[in-house]
Protein backbone atom coordinates (compact mmCIF):
# COMPACT_ATOMS: atom_id res chain seq x y z
CA UNK A 1 0.00 0.00 0.00
CA UNK A 2 2.95 2.33 0.64
CA UNK A 3 4.11 2.12 -2.97
CA UNK A 4 0.56 2.45 -4.28
CA UNK A 5 0.13 5.55 -2.13
CA UNK A 6 3.27 7.33 -3.31
CA UNK A 7 2.65 6.40 -6.94
CA UNK A 8 -0.90 7.65 -6.73
CA UNK A 9 0.16 10.82 -4.91
CA UNK A 10 2.76 11.62 -7.59
CA UNK A 11 0.11 11.20 -10.26
CA UNK A 12 -2.22 13.56 -8.41
CA UNK A 13 0.62 16.05 -7.84
CA UNK A 14 1.41 16.08 -11.56
CA UNK A 15 -2.11 17.36 -12.14
CA UNK A 16 -2.43 19.59 -9.08
CA UNK A 17 0.47 21.81 -8.03
CA UNK A 18 -1.20 22.55 -4.69
CA UNK A 19 -0.28 19.07 -3.46
CA UNK A 20 2.67 18.97 -1.06
CA UNK A 21 4.21 16.22 1.03
CA UNK A 22 5.53 16.61 4.56
CA UNK A 23 7.23 13.83 6.46
CA UNK A 24 8.36 13.50 10.04
CA UNK A 25 11.71 12.05 8.97
CA UNK A 26 10.14 8.71 8.06
CA UNK A 27 9.45 7.00 4.77
CA UNK A 28 13.03 6.19 3.75
CA UNK A 29 12.89 4.50 0.35
CA UNK A 30 9.30 5.66 -0.19
CA UNK A 31 8.96 9.44 -0.18
CA UNK A 32 12.13 10.15 -2.19
CA UNK A 33 10.26 9.54 -5.43
CA UNK A 34 8.02 12.49 -4.61
CA UNK A 35 10.86 14.61 -3.22
CA UNK A 36 12.98 14.09 -6.34
CA UNK A 37 10.15 15.06 -8.64
CA UNK A 38 8.72 17.97 -6.64
CA UNK A 39 11.53 19.28 -4.41
CA UNK A 40 9.79 22.62 -3.94
CA UNK A 41 6.72 20.84 -2.56
CA UNK A 42 8.43 18.43 -0.20
CA UNK A 43 9.45 19.19 3.37
CA UNK A 44 11.10 16.83 5.82
CA UNK A 45 10.12 18.44 9.11
CA UNK A 46 12.39 16.21 11.16
CA UNK A 47 11.26 14.29 14.21
CA UNK A 48 8.75 16.97 15.14
CA UNK A 49 5.24 15.75 14.39
CA UNK A 50 3.44 18.48 16.31
CA UNK A 51 5.08 21.30 14.41
CA UNK A 52 4.76 19.36 11.17
CA UNK A 53 0.99 19.13 11.57
CA UNK A 54 0.64 22.85 12.31
CA UNK A 55 2.88 23.71 9.36
CA UNK A 56 0.60 21.59 7.17
CA UNK A 57 -2.40 23.55 8.47
CA UNK A 58 -0.62 26.82 7.65
CA UNK A 59 0.10 25.60 4.12
CA UNK A 60 -3.50 24.47 3.68
CA UNK A 61 -4.77 27.82 4.94
CA UNK A 62 -2.69 29.37 2.16
CA UNK A 63 -4.31 27.29 -0.57
CA UNK A 64 -2.10 24.19 -0.65
CA UNK A 65 -3.14 20.54 -0.26
CA UNK A 66 -0.55 19.06 2.09
CA UNK A 67 -0.19 15.36 2.82
CA UNK A 68 1.48 14.51 6.11
CA UNK A 69 3.28 11.18 6.19
CA UNK A 70 4.56 9.19 9.12
CA UNK A 71 4.12 5.81 10.73
CA UNK A 72 1.56 4.23 13.04
CA UNK A 73 0.72 6.48 15.98
CA UNK A 74 3.20 9.30 15.33
CA UNK A 75 1.04 11.41 12.96
CA UNK A 76 -2.00 10.89 15.17
CA UNK A 77 -1.39 10.60 18.91
CA UNK A 78 1.83 12.59 19.07
CA UNK A 79 0.11 15.57 17.47
CA UNK A 80 -3.52 14.99 18.36
CA UNK A 81 -4.15 18.54 19.54
CA UNK A 82 -2.61 19.99 16.38
CA UNK A 83 -4.95 17.80 14.30
CA UNK A 84 -7.88 18.82 16.48
CA UNK A 85 -7.25 22.57 16.71
CA UNK A 86 -5.30 23.48 13.60
CA UNK A 87 -6.62 21.04 10.98
CA UNK A 88 -10.10 19.81 11.94
CA UNK A 89 -11.39 22.90 13.76
CA UNK A 90 -10.47 25.03 10.74
CA UNK A 91 -11.73 22.35 8.31
CA UNK A 92 -8.53 22.53 6.27
CA UNK A 93 -7.63 20.12 3.46
CA UNK A 94 -4.78 18.30 5.20
CA UNK A 95 -4.51 14.56 4.57
CA UNK A 96 -2.80 12.57 7.29
CA UNK A 97 -1.26 9.32 6.09
CA UNK A 98 -0.21 6.73 8.64
CA UNK A 99 1.75 3.75 7.41
CA UNK A 100 1.86 0.47 9.29
CA UNK A 101 -1.53 0.97 10.91
CA UNK A 102 -2.71 -1.72 13.28
CA UNK A 103 0.05 -4.14 14.23
CA UNK A 104 2.00 -3.51 11.02
CA UNK A 105 5.27 -2.77 12.82
CA UNK A 106 4.99 -6.07 14.71
CA UNK A 107 8.30 -6.66 16.48
CA UNK A 108 8.93 -2.94 17.05
CA UNK A 109 6.38 -3.15 19.81
CA UNK A 110 3.42 -1.24 21.19
CA UNK A 111 5.11 2.18 20.91
CA UNK A 112 5.01 1.62 17.14
CA UNK A 113 1.55 0.08 16.87
CA UNK A 114 -1.40 2.16 15.68
CA UNK A 115 -4.32 0.39 17.27
CA UNK A 116 -6.30 3.24 18.79
CA UNK A 117 -5.91 5.68 15.90
CA UNK A 118 -9.38 5.25 14.41
CA UNK A 119 -10.99 5.90 17.79
CA UNK A 120 -9.01 9.09 18.28
CA UNK A 121 -9.72 10.37 14.79
CA UNK A 122 -13.41 9.49 15.00
CA UNK A 123 -13.84 11.86 17.93
CA UNK A 124 -12.72 14.85 15.87
CA UNK A 125 -14.89 17.16 13.74
CA UNK A 126 -14.89 17.47 9.94
CA UNK A 127 -12.50 14.58 9.24
CA UNK A 128 -13.03 11.61 6.94
CA UNK A 129 -11.38 8.36 7.98
CA UNK A 130 -10.11 5.77 5.55
CA UNK A 131 -8.57 2.36 6.05
CA UNK A 132 -8.11 0.67 2.66
CA UNK A 133 -7.56 -3.07 2.45
CA UNK A 134 -5.26 -3.23 -0.55
CA UNK A 135 -3.40 -1.10 -3.14
CA UNK A 136 -6.44 -0.66 -5.38
CA UNK A 137 -8.51 0.72 -2.49
CA UNK A 138 -5.57 2.94 -1.54
CA UNK A 139 -5.77 4.59 -4.94
CA UNK A 140 -9.52 5.00 -4.58
CA UNK A 141 -9.44 6.59 -1.13
CA UNK A 142 -6.65 8.93 -2.18
CA UNK A 143 -8.70 10.12 -5.13
CA UNK A 144 -11.81 10.49 -2.97
CA UNK A 145 -10.11 12.42 -0.18
CA UNK A 146 -8.39 14.72 -2.67
CA UNK A 147 -11.68 15.44 -4.38
CA UNK A 148 -13.35 16.23 -1.04
CA UNK A 149 -10.77 18.87 -0.11
CA UNK A 150 -11.35 18.42 3.62
CA UNK A 151 -9.41 16.94 6.53
CA UNK A 152 -8.73 13.25 5.99
CA UNK A 153 -6.99 10.43 7.77
CA UNK A 154 -5.72 7.48 5.75
CA UNK A 155 -4.46 4.41 7.60
CA UNK A 156 -2.30 2.24 5.38
CA UNK A 157 -0.73 -1.16 5.87
CA UNK A 158 2.95 -1.53 5.15
CA UNK A 159 4.01 -2.86 1.80
CA UNK A 160 3.58 -5.88 -0.40
CA UNK A 161 -0.10 -6.44 0.26
CA UNK A 162 -1.66 -8.05 -2.81
CA UNK A 163 -4.66 -6.60 -4.56
CA UNK A 164 -7.65 -8.56 -3.32
CA UNK A 165 -9.60 -9.71 -6.32
CA UNK A 166 -13.20 -8.68 -6.06
CA UNK A 167 -15.41 -10.29 -8.66
CA UNK A 168 -18.39 -8.24 -7.73
CA UNK A 169 -19.48 -4.84 -8.86
CA UNK A 170 -21.04 -4.21 -5.47
CA UNK A 171 -19.06 -1.22 -4.38
CA UNK A 172 -18.93 2.49 -3.83
CA UNK A 173 -15.37 3.28 -4.82
CA UNK A 174 -13.32 4.19 -1.77
CA UNK A 175 -16.17 3.57 0.67
CA UNK A 176 -17.55 0.01 0.59
CA UNK A 177 -16.58 -3.01 -1.51
CA UNK A 178 -17.85 -6.56 -1.53
CA UNK A 179 -14.81 -8.85 -1.78
CA UNK A 180 -16.60 -12.21 -1.78
CA UNK A 181 -20.28 -13.03 -1.95
CA UNK A 182 -22.09 -15.47 0.35
CA UNK A 183 -25.21 -16.01 2.43
CA UNK A 184 -24.16 -18.08 5.48
CA UNK A 185 -22.09 -15.42 7.19
CA UNK A 186 -21.00 -11.85 6.49
CA UNK A 187 -17.64 -10.48 7.58
CA UNK A 188 -17.28 -6.71 7.72
CA UNK A 189 -13.64 -5.69 7.78
CA UNK A 190 -11.51 -2.62 7.34
CA UNK A 191 -7.85 -2.35 6.40
CA UNK A 192 -5.21 -4.92 5.57
CA UNK A 193 -6.84 -7.49 7.86
CA UNK A 194 -9.52 -7.95 5.16
CA UNK A 195 -7.09 -10.17 3.29
CA UNK A 196 -7.09 -12.65 6.16
CA UNK A 197 -10.88 -12.56 6.09
CA UNK A 198 -11.01 -13.49 2.40
CA UNK A 199 -8.56 -16.33 3.04
CA UNK A 200 -10.72 -17.61 5.90
CA UNK A 201 -13.79 -17.43 3.65
CA UNK A 202 -11.94 -19.33 0.96
CA UNK A 203 -10.83 -22.09 3.31
CA UNK A 204 -14.45 -22.61 4.39
CA UNK A 205 -15.87 -22.33 0.88
CA UNK A 206 -16.37 -26.06 0.31
CA UNK A 207 -19.09 -26.13 2.98
CA UNK A 208 -20.15 -22.53 3.46
CA UNK A 209 -20.59 -19.39 1.46
CA UNK A 210 -19.17 -16.41 3.30
CA UNK A 211 -19.56 -12.81 2.26
CA UNK A 212 -16.63 -10.50 2.97
CA UNK A 213 -17.18 -6.77 2.73
CA UNK A 214 -14.33 -4.30 2.95
CA UNK A 215 -15.15 -0.90 4.44
CA UNK A 216 -12.31 1.43 3.44
CA UNK A 217 -14.19 4.51 4.59
CA UNK A 218 -15.05 4.27 8.27
CA UNK A 219 -16.26 7.83 8.62
CA UNK A 220 -18.66 8.85 7.25
CA UNK A 221 -20.11 5.39 6.85
CA UNK A 222 -22.30 4.41 3.90
CA UNK A 223 -25.06 3.00 6.10
CA UNK A 224 -27.84 2.38 3.60
CA UNK A 225 -25.61 0.87 0.93
CA UNK A 226 -23.98 -1.36 3.51
CA UNK A 227 -27.32 -2.43 4.97
CA UNK A 228 -28.60 -3.42 1.53
CA UNK A 229 -25.34 -5.18 0.67
CA UNK A 230 -25.34 -7.55 3.65
CA UNK A 231 -26.76 -10.91 2.55
CA UNK A 232 -26.66 -13.03 5.71
CA UNK A 233 -28.10 -13.02 9.20
CA UNK A 234 -24.83 -13.80 10.95
CA UNK A 235 -22.35 -10.94 11.01
CA UNK A 236 -18.75 -10.73 12.18
CA UNK A 237 -16.90 -7.40 12.39
CA UNK A 238 -13.11 -7.71 12.14
CA UNK A 239 -10.62 -4.92 12.77
CA UNK A 240 -6.95 -4.53 13.64
CA UNK A 241 -7.80 -2.00 16.32
CA UNK A 242 -8.80 -2.03 19.95
CA UNK A 243 -12.38 -2.89 20.88
CA UNK A 244 -13.53 0.65 21.53
CA UNK A 245 -14.06 3.43 19.06
CA UNK A 246 -13.14 1.76 15.77
CA UNK A 247 -15.04 0.16 12.91
CA UNK A 248 -17.47 -1.75 15.13
CA UNK A 249 -18.30 1.37 17.12
CA UNK A 250 -18.83 3.33 13.93
CA UNK A 251 -21.20 0.66 12.62
CA UNK A 252 -23.14 0.55 15.89
CA UNK A 253 -23.49 4.29 16.17
CA UNK A 254 -24.38 4.87 12.54
CA UNK A 255 -26.80 1.97 12.23
CA UNK A 256 -28.49 3.00 15.44
CA UNK A 257 -28.85 6.55 14.14
CA UNK A 258 -30.40 5.18 10.94
CA UNK A 259 -32.65 2.94 13.09
CA UNK A 260 -31.21 -0.19 11.49
CA UNK A 261 -30.74 -3.09 13.87
CA UNK A 262 -27.51 -4.99 13.42
CA UNK A 263 -26.21 -7.58 15.87
CA UNK A 264 -22.71 -8.88 15.32
CA UNK A 265 -19.75 -10.69 16.78
CA UNK A 266 -16.54 -8.70 17.01
CA UNK A 267 -12.87 -9.59 16.66
CA UNK A 268 -10.33 -6.93 17.62
CA UNK A 269 -6.87 -6.46 19.16
CA UNK A 270 -7.17 -7.40 22.81
CA UNK A 271 -5.59 -5.22 25.44
CA UNK A 272 -3.82 -8.06 27.24
CA UNK A 273 -1.36 -8.41 24.39
CA UNK A 274 0.09 -4.92 24.22
CA UNK A 275 3.38 -5.92 25.82
CA UNK A 276 3.78 -9.08 23.76
CA UNK A 277 6.60 -9.32 21.26
CA UNK A 278 6.36 -10.86 17.83
CA UNK A 279 5.60 -10.47 14.17
CA UNK A 280 2.39 -8.94 12.88
CA UNK A 281 1.07 -12.44 12.12
CA UNK A 282 1.93 -13.66 15.62
CA UNK A 283 0.38 -10.65 17.30
CA UNK A 284 -2.74 -10.98 15.17
CA UNK A 285 -3.01 -14.63 16.23
CA UNK A 286 -3.07 -13.66 19.91
CA UNK A 287 -6.40 -11.94 19.30
CA UNK A 288 -7.74 -14.51 16.85
CA UNK A 289 -7.15 -12.23 13.88
CA UNK A 290 -4.97 -14.69 11.96
CA UNK A 291 -6.57 -16.90 9.31
CA UNK A 292 -6.84 -19.89 11.66
CA UNK A 293 -8.40 -17.76 14.38
CA UNK A 294 -10.86 -16.26 11.93
CA UNK A 295 -11.80 -19.71 10.63
CA UNK A 296 -12.36 -20.87 14.21
CA UNK A 297 -14.68 -17.96 15.02
CA UNK A 298 -16.54 -18.38 11.74
CA UNK A 299 -17.09 -22.08 12.43
CA UNK A 300 -18.42 -21.33 15.90
CA UNK A 301 -20.82 -18.79 14.50
CA UNK A 302 -21.88 -21.07 11.65
CA UNK A 303 -22.62 -23.90 14.07
CA UNK A 304 -24.98 -21.74 16.09
CA UNK A 305 -28.61 -21.84 15.11
Amino acid at each position, binding site marked *: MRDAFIKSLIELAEEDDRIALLTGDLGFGVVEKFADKFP*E*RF*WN*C*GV*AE*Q*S*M*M*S*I*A*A*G*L*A*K*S*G*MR*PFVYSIANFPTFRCL*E*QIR*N*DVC*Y*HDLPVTIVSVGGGLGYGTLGYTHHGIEDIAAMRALPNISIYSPSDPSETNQVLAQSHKNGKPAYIRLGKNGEPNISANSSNEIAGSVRELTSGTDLTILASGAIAENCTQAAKSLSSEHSIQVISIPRIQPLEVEFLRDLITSQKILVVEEHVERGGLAASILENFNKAKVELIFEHLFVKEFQINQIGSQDYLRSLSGLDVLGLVKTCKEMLSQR
Partner: protein
Amino acid sequence: MSELIKSKSQEIAHNSRISCLKMVHAAKAAHLGSSLSVIDILSVLYSDVGNISKTNPDSLASDQVLVSKGHAAAGTYAVLANSGFFETAILESYCEDGSLIGGHVTFGKVPGIPFSTGSLGHGLPLGIGLALARKRSNANSFVYVVMSDGECDEGTTWESALIANQFEVGNLVAIIDRNRLQSFGDTEETISLEPFKSKWESFGWNVSEVDGHDHEAMKEIISNIRKPVSSKPNVIIANTIKGRGISFMENQVVWHYRPPSDEQLAAALLELEAQS
Protein backbone atom coordinates in the same frame (compact mmCIF):
# COMPACT_ATOMS: atom_id res chain seq x y z
CA MET B 1 -3.65 64.00 18.23
CA SER B 2 -2.23 65.16 21.53
CA GLU B 3 1.31 65.76 22.64
CA LEU B 4 1.54 62.27 24.05
CA ILE B 5 -0.19 60.49 21.18
CA LYS B 6 1.86 61.20 18.11
CA SER B 7 0.87 58.60 15.57
CA LYS B 8 -2.13 56.72 14.25
CA SER B 9 -0.92 53.48 15.82
CA GLN B 10 -0.52 55.18 19.20
CA GLU B 11 -4.03 56.55 18.93
CA ILE B 12 -5.34 53.07 18.15
CA ALA B 13 -3.40 51.61 21.08
CA HIS B 14 -4.80 54.26 23.41
CA ASN B 15 -8.38 53.70 22.26
CA SER B 16 -7.88 49.95 22.42
CA ARG B 17 -6.77 50.14 26.05
CA ILE B 18 -10.01 51.96 26.87
CA SER B 19 -12.06 49.41 24.90
CA CYS B 20 -10.24 46.53 26.47
CA LEU B 21 -10.77 47.72 30.05
CA LYS B 22 -14.49 48.17 29.42
CA MET B 23 -14.80 44.79 27.73
CA VAL B 24 -13.05 42.84 30.47
CA HIS B 25 -14.92 44.75 33.17
CA ALA B 26 -18.33 44.10 31.60
CA ALA B 27 -17.61 40.44 30.90
CA LYS B 28 -15.88 39.88 34.25
CA ALA B 29 -13.27 38.14 32.17
CA ALA B 30 -9.56 37.37 32.60
CA HIS B 31 -6.26 38.13 30.87
CA LEU B 32 -6.49 41.92 31.09
CA GLY B 33 -2.80 42.28 31.97
CA SER B 34 -1.79 40.11 28.99
CA SER B 35 -3.89 42.27 26.66
CA LEU B 36 -2.52 45.55 27.97
CA SER B 37 1.05 44.35 27.49
CA VAL B 38 0.56 43.36 23.84
CA ILE B 39 -1.73 46.16 22.62
CA ASP B 40 1.13 48.36 21.37
CA ILE B 41 2.65 45.48 19.37
CA LEU B 42 -0.72 44.63 17.82
CA SER B 43 -1.51 48.28 17.05
CA VAL B 44 1.76 48.62 15.13
CA LEU B 45 1.08 45.39 13.23
CA TYR B 46 -2.60 45.80 12.39
CA SER B 47 -2.66 49.53 11.72
CA ASP B 48 0.78 50.19 10.31
CA VAL B 49 3.39 47.67 9.18
CA GLY B 50 1.09 44.72 8.51
CA ASN B 51 -0.28 44.92 4.98
CA ILE B 52 -3.32 42.77 5.63
CA SER B 53 -6.05 42.49 3.05
CA LYS B 54 -9.39 43.04 4.76
CA THR B 55 -11.28 41.44 1.89
CA ASN B 56 -9.01 38.49 1.06
CA PRO B 57 -6.57 37.95 3.92
CA ASP B 58 -5.76 34.38 2.82
CA SER B 59 -4.41 35.71 -0.47
CA LEU B 60 -0.69 35.06 -0.69
CA ALA B 61 -0.17 38.74 -1.44
CA SER B 62 -1.56 39.63 1.97
CA ASP B 63 0.51 39.72 5.15
CA GLN B 64 -0.83 37.62 7.99
CA VAL B 65 -0.82 38.46 11.68
CA LEU B 66 -1.34 35.44 13.88
CA VAL B 67 -1.89 36.04 17.57
CA SER B 68 -0.56 32.88 19.13
CA LYS B 69 -1.15 34.13 22.67
CA GLY B 70 -4.86 33.73 22.06
CA HIS B 71 -5.75 34.57 25.66
CA ALA B 72 -5.03 38.21 24.81
CA ALA B 73 -8.35 38.15 22.97
CA ALA B 74 -9.77 41.34 24.47
CA GLY B 75 -6.70 43.28 23.39
CA THR B 76 -6.65 41.68 19.95
CA TYR B 77 -10.31 42.37 19.24
CA ALA B 78 -10.01 45.90 20.60
CA VAL B 79 -7.09 46.67 18.27
CA LEU B 80 -8.79 45.04 15.27
CA ALA B 81 -11.99 47.01 15.79
CA ASN B 82 -10.18 50.29 16.46
CA SER B 83 -8.10 49.65 13.31
CA GLY B 84 -11.26 49.34 11.22
CA PHE B 85 -11.46 45.58 10.73
CA PHE B 86 -14.99 45.54 12.18
CA GLU B 87 -17.43 47.77 14.01
CA THR B 88 -16.35 48.84 17.48
CA ALA B 89 -19.95 48.24 18.65
CA ILE B 90 -19.24 44.51 18.42
CA LEU B 91 -16.74 44.90 21.27
CA GLU B 92 -19.65 45.52 23.66
CA SER B 93 -20.75 41.90 23.23
CA TYR B 94 -17.39 40.45 24.33
CA CYS B 95 -17.95 37.01 25.87
CA GLU B 96 -21.75 37.31 25.77
CA ASP B 97 -23.77 34.24 24.77
CA GLY B 98 -23.84 34.00 20.99
CA SER B 99 -21.23 36.75 20.57
CA LEU B 100 -18.80 36.93 17.67
CA ILE B 101 -15.91 37.51 20.06
CA GLY B 102 -14.94 35.51 23.11
CA GLY B 103 -12.21 34.77 25.59
CA HIS B 104 -9.74 33.33 23.08
CA VAL B 105 -9.29 34.55 19.52
CA THR B 106 -11.60 32.64 17.22
CA PHE B 107 -11.42 32.47 13.43
CA GLY B 108 -14.29 32.86 11.01
CA LYS B 109 -16.34 35.32 13.07
CA VAL B 110 -14.68 38.68 12.48
CA PRO B 111 -12.01 39.69 9.94
CA GLY B 112 -8.34 39.62 10.87
CA ILE B 113 -8.15 36.25 12.65
CA PRO B 114 -6.58 33.54 10.44
CA PHE B 115 -6.50 30.87 13.14
CA SER B 116 -8.20 30.21 16.44
CA THR B 117 -5.63 30.05 19.18
CA GLY B 118 -5.62 29.62 22.90
CA SER B 119 -3.68 26.45 23.35
CA LEU B 120 -0.15 27.81 23.39
CA GLY B 121 2.61 26.73 21.04
CA HIS B 122 0.53 26.47 17.89
CA GLY B 123 1.16 29.87 16.32
CA LEU B 124 4.81 29.56 15.40
CA PRO B 125 4.51 26.36 13.32
CA LEU B 126 1.26 27.61 11.79
CA GLY B 127 3.16 30.75 10.85
CA ILE B 128 5.90 28.66 9.23
CA GLY B 129 3.25 27.02 7.04
CA LEU B 130 1.76 30.39 6.08
CA ALA B 131 5.23 31.77 5.35
CA LEU B 132 6.41 28.74 3.36
CA ALA B 133 3.41 28.97 1.04
CA ARG B 134 4.20 32.66 0.45
CA LYS B 135 7.88 31.98 -0.08
CA ARG B 136 7.12 29.22 -2.57
CA SER B 137 4.94 31.54 -4.62
CA ASN B 138 7.54 34.33 -4.49
CA ALA B 139 5.04 36.62 -2.78
CA ASN B 140 6.54 39.63 -1.01
CA SER B 141 4.20 39.27 1.93
CA PHE B 142 5.25 38.59 5.52
CA VAL B 143 3.83 36.53 8.35
CA TYR B 144 3.89 37.93 11.89
CA VAL B 145 3.36 35.60 14.83
CA VAL B 146 2.75 37.26 18.18
CA MET B 147 3.72 35.01 21.04
CA SER B 148 3.92 35.27 24.80
CA ASP B 149 7.14 34.61 26.66
CA GLY B 150 5.52 31.93 28.83
CA GLU B 151 4.52 30.24 25.58
CA CYS B 152 8.19 29.56 24.96
CA ASP B 153 7.94 26.77 27.54
CA GLU B 154 6.14 24.78 24.84
CA GLY B 155 8.29 22.27 22.99
CA THR B 156 6.78 23.20 19.64
CA THR B 157 8.39 26.65 19.97
CA TRP B 158 11.83 25.10 19.84
CA GLU B 159 10.92 22.45 17.26
CA SER B 160 9.73 25.31 15.11
CA ALA B 161 12.80 27.40 15.86
CA LEU B 162 14.88 24.58 14.36
CA ILE B 163 12.55 24.03 11.41
CA ALA B 164 12.19 27.72 10.43
CA ASN B 165 15.96 28.02 10.32
CA GLN B 166 16.29 24.85 8.24
CA PHE B 167 13.63 25.95 5.76
CA GLU B 168 15.04 29.49 5.58
CA VAL B 169 11.72 31.17 6.22
CA GLY B 170 13.00 34.73 5.99
CA ASN B 171 9.48 36.13 5.61
CA LEU B 172 8.51 35.00 9.09
CA VAL B 173 8.65 37.42 12.02
CA ALA B 174 7.98 36.14 15.51
CA ILE B 175 7.32 38.90 18.03
CA ILE B 176 7.56 37.80 21.63
CA ASP B 177 5.65 39.82 24.19
CA ARG B 178 8.37 39.64 26.84
CA ASN B 179 6.47 40.88 29.90
CA ARG B 180 8.32 38.40 32.13
CA LEU B 181 5.18 37.28 33.94
CA GLN B 182 3.39 34.03 33.35
CA SER B 183 0.64 32.22 35.19
CA PHE B 184 2.30 31.84 38.61
CA GLY B 185 4.75 34.73 38.42
CA ASP B 186 8.19 35.58 37.05
CA THR B 187 9.15 33.59 33.95
CA GLU B 188 12.66 33.22 35.34
CA GLU B 189 11.35 31.61 38.51
CA THR B 190 9.00 29.33 36.57
CA ILE B 191 10.97 27.92 33.65
CA SER B 192 13.87 30.26 33.05
CA LEU B 193 14.14 31.55 29.48
CA GLU B 194 17.35 33.54 29.84
CA PRO B 195 19.69 33.99 28.11
CA PHE B 196 16.76 34.43 25.79
CA LYS B 197 18.35 36.44 23.01
CA SER B 198 21.33 34.15 22.62
CA LYS B 199 19.05 31.10 22.63
CA TRP B 200 17.31 32.39 19.51
CA GLU B 201 20.62 33.44 17.96
CA SER B 202 22.01 29.97 18.51
CA PHE B 203 18.99 28.55 16.68
CA GLY B 204 20.01 30.62 13.65
CA TRP B 205 17.45 33.41 13.90
CA ASN B 206 17.88 37.08 13.17
CA VAL B 207 17.20 38.53 16.65
CA SER B 208 16.20 42.07 17.61
CA GLU B 209 15.32 43.44 21.00
CA VAL B 210 13.06 46.43 21.44
CA ASP B 211 10.85 48.30 23.88
CA GLY B 212 7.50 46.71 23.05
CA HIS B 213 5.68 49.95 23.87
CA ASP B 214 7.82 52.13 21.58
CA HIS B 215 5.86 52.21 18.34
CA GLU B 216 8.44 54.00 16.23
CA ALA B 217 11.24 51.68 17.33
CA MET B 218 9.14 48.63 16.44
CA LYS B 219 8.24 50.10 13.06
CA GLU B 220 11.89 50.77 12.29
CA ILE B 221 12.97 47.23 13.18
CA ILE B 222 10.21 45.67 11.08
CA SER B 223 10.95 48.01 8.21
CA ASN B 224 14.60 46.93 8.31
CA ILE B 225 13.62 43.26 8.43
CA ARG B 226 11.53 43.67 5.28
CA LYS B 227 14.40 45.11 3.26
CA PRO B 228 16.38 43.27 2.15
CA VAL B 229 14.74 39.93 2.86
CA SER B 230 17.19 37.62 4.56
CA SER B 231 16.91 33.86 4.51
CA LYS B 232 16.99 33.81 8.30
CA PRO B 233 13.72 33.76 10.24
CA ASN B 234 13.27 36.82 12.43
CA VAL B 235 12.40 37.17 16.07
CA ILE B 236 11.77 40.42 17.89
CA ILE B 237 11.97 40.23 21.66
CA ALA B 238 9.62 43.02 22.65
CA ASN B 239 10.23 43.97 26.26
CA THR B 240 6.88 44.93 27.72
CA ILE B 241 5.10 45.58 30.97
CA LYS B 242 2.18 43.40 31.89
CA GLY B 243 -0.80 45.65 32.59
CA ARG B 244 0.92 48.54 30.76
CA GLY B 245 -0.75 51.93 31.06
CA ILE B 246 -2.58 51.42 34.34
CA SER B 247 -0.24 52.09 37.27
CA PHE B 248 -1.88 49.73 39.73
CA MET B 249 -2.00 46.89 37.21
CA GLU B 250 1.57 47.09 35.95
CA ASN B 251 3.78 44.10 36.69
CA GLN B 252 1.14 42.49 38.90
CA VAL B 253 0.46 38.84 38.08
CA VAL B 254 -3.01 39.04 39.63
CA TRP B 255 -4.17 40.99 36.56
CA HIS B 256 -3.61 37.86 34.53
CA TYR B 257 -6.85 36.73 36.11
CA ARG B 258 -8.78 39.53 37.80
CA PRO B 259 -11.38 41.75 36.11
CA PRO B 260 -11.48 45.33 37.42
CA SER B 261 -14.22 46.40 39.85
CA ASP B 262 -16.37 49.44 39.03
CA GLU B 263 -14.05 51.66 41.08
CA GLN B 264 -10.92 50.20 39.51
CA LEU B 265 -12.35 50.70 36.04
CA ALA B 266 -13.11 54.34 36.78
CA ALA B 267 -9.61 54.89 38.17
CA ALA B 268 -8.02 53.17 35.19
CA LEU B 269 -9.99 55.22 32.69
CA LEU B 270 -8.97 58.39 34.50
CA GLU B 271 -5.32 57.38 34.19
CA LEU B 272 -5.74 56.77 30.48
CA GLU B 273 -7.48 60.10 30.05
CA ALA B 274 -4.48 61.79 31.60
CA GLN B 275 -2.25 60.06 29.08
CA SER B 276 -4.17 61.37 26.07
